């Protein structure tokens, strides 16, 4: 019987011919992040299994807003030296891990990676099985392996013609609306279909990123010429794309046609509470803050479309817009392309790359009663600060257009 992508990758890393959903396997892991190094040291372990395959950056509190955070960053630099970690990224040369690590060659098709932060599913855009490991990362740091439960696989076929304004965010919000935020619980989702092939890599990346918002362990895409092109300057080791067998077993197959899709918005406090932006516009929802950033939607083309929407326009009075590119590489590209100048001219506060505002950490925390439209991934109660704040999630175009209008709007008239 055939295997899905996840089954093939897990079998290969377990040294097995095949695996079946529900089985537990111990797998070799290709890379991890260094968030548990301090705990490893406290346990008395003096080396990591492969210092070249451990990636480290401080992205959540970057640069440190408090003495505690500064001490924690200092501690991290000491551990990097002690364990000989080669892939460490200092402030100004870093970014958000889910963007930064792939930019620096961490992930290649067919690999199995378990790392810190829940949005690790992002790596599935590269046809790699990438998922979260929190405390478990200790096991990888010491032994280069970890246990996995082989997940059931679910196929999501996205067909139709992608409308010109439509990006990955609109598609994943529609999927979350239709199937709920737990349809992928502990499962491996494989995305395929005509519209997926039309999508840019960045658009697929958003969908993989929000895989965890629909419960997934892996959110996988096939490798095509767009994947290879992006990886060609970043990954020098050989890799083998993994395709599902024709007779692979899926628990369910869901089908979408995006030809008639509208720009979508997730209302508070749930990424699955999704309505068309048009409905939000008709309702009339004034905003205090617009945030364009996070590992979900702050890549080159996200900043480009925001600049296109905002060129020659101004952020509405009474509204502030924060822009934080996903990495320093994105920041520099946006600077050279002139997008940051357009955004700054429009009255945006252009920040460096950071997770800060998305998780309510710093650099844009919401106060009581404030309303924010955000290109990030979560709008749970209290996510971006006060538990009395309201967060709406949308595409970069919708965020930018809403900042100009001062209320949530359908961005299409701004893109004409």
């Amino acid at each position, binding site marked *: 019987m055939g295997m899905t992508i996840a089954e093939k990758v897990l079998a290969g890393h377990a040294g097995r011919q095949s695996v079946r959903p529900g089985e*537990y396997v*111990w797998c070799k892991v290709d890379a991890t992040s260094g968030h548990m190094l301090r705990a490893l040291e*406290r*346990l*008395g*372990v*003096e080396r990591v299994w492969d210092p070249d395959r451990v990636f480290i950056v401080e992205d*959540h*509190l970057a640069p440190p*807003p*408090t003495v*505690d*955070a500064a*001490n*924690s960053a200092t501690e991290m630099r000491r551990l990097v030296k002690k364990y000989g970690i080669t892939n460490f990224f200092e402030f100004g040369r870093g970014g958000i891990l889910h963007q930064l690590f792939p930019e620096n060659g961490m992930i290649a098709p067919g690999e199995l990676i378990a790392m*810190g*932060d*829940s949005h690790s599913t992002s790596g599935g855009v590269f046809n790699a099985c990438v*998922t*979260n*490991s*929190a*405390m*478990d990362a*200790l*096991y990888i740091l*010491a*032994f280069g392996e970890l*246990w996995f*439960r082989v997940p059931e696989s679910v196929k999501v076929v996205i067909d139709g013609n992608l409308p010109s304004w439509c990006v990955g965010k609109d598609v994943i919000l529609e999927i979350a609306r239709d199937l709920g*935020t*737990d349809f992928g*619980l*502990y499962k491996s989702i494989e995305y395929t279909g005509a519209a997926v092939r039309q999508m840019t890599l960045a658009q697929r990346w958003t969908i993989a990123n929000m895989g*965890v*918002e629909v*419960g997934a*362990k892996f959110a996988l895409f096939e490798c095509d010429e767009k994947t290879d092109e992006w990886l060609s300057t970043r990954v020098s080791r050989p890799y083998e794309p993994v395709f599902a067998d024709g007779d692979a077993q899926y628990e369910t197959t869901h089908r979408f046609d995006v030809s008639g899709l509208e720009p979508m918005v997730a209302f508070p406090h*749930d990424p699955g509470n999704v309505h068309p932006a048009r409905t939000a516009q008709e309702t009339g929802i004034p905003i205090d803050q617009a945030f364009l950033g996070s590992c979900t939607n702050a890549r080159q083309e996200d900043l480009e479309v925001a600049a296109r929407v905002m060129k020659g326009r101004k952020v509405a009075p009474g509204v502030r817009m924060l822009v934080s590119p996903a990495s320093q590489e994105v920041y520099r590209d946006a600077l050279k392309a002139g997008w940051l100048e357009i955004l700054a001219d429009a009255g945006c506060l252009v920040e460096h790359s950071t997770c800060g505002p998305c*998780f*309510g*950490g*710093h650099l844009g*925390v919401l106060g009581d009663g404030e309303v924010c439209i955000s290109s990030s991934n*979560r709008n*749970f*109660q*209290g*996510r971006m*600060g*006060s*538990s009395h704040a309201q967060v709406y999630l949308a595409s970069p175009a919708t965020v930018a257009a809403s900042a100009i209008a001062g209320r949530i709007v359908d961005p299409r008239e701004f893109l004409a």
Partner: protein
Amino acid sequence: METVFSGRAWKFGDKISTDLMVPGSYVLARRNIDPMEAAQYCMRANRPDWAAQVRPGDLLIAGRNFGCGSSRNGSEPLKTLGIGAVIVESVSRIHLRNAINTGLPTLVCPGILGLAEEGQTLRVDILSGKVANLDTGAELQGDSWEEGSPPYQIVMAGGFMPFFQEKLRSAGLITAAGSE
């Protein structure tokens, strides 16, 4: 390792996120926050008076997709508050692994929200997966761990740290006396 827990039930709904259990603004933004202080913020957004009312040995029951969202360890404040075990309709993968590793028994038991009202006394056997409402006599069968599987071994070891330390000793990466 204790495997049977009895206690009064606290009842929560669907999609209780880790942002509710470990709010970023109040806990994650403070790198060296004391665990007991961090635990006081658990569920403060959705149920402001709750953390202070929890007594050691209480149980928590909840709905679908418990622990959705971030990989922040929501089991840590729950355990710090004294919650003995968690029984849910369904659970997020990340939260479940954190729960196993933290040594906070977390059982998936479809129908649990219909089995009990808040304040009733439940008994849960995390090895057999049996849950009983001691006030009504009603029972349900939840999931159980496959004997010998990695999560079973970690649960039986009392969490990830004791399990991991034993592996480190066997591999000669730490000495028997040379660790915390």
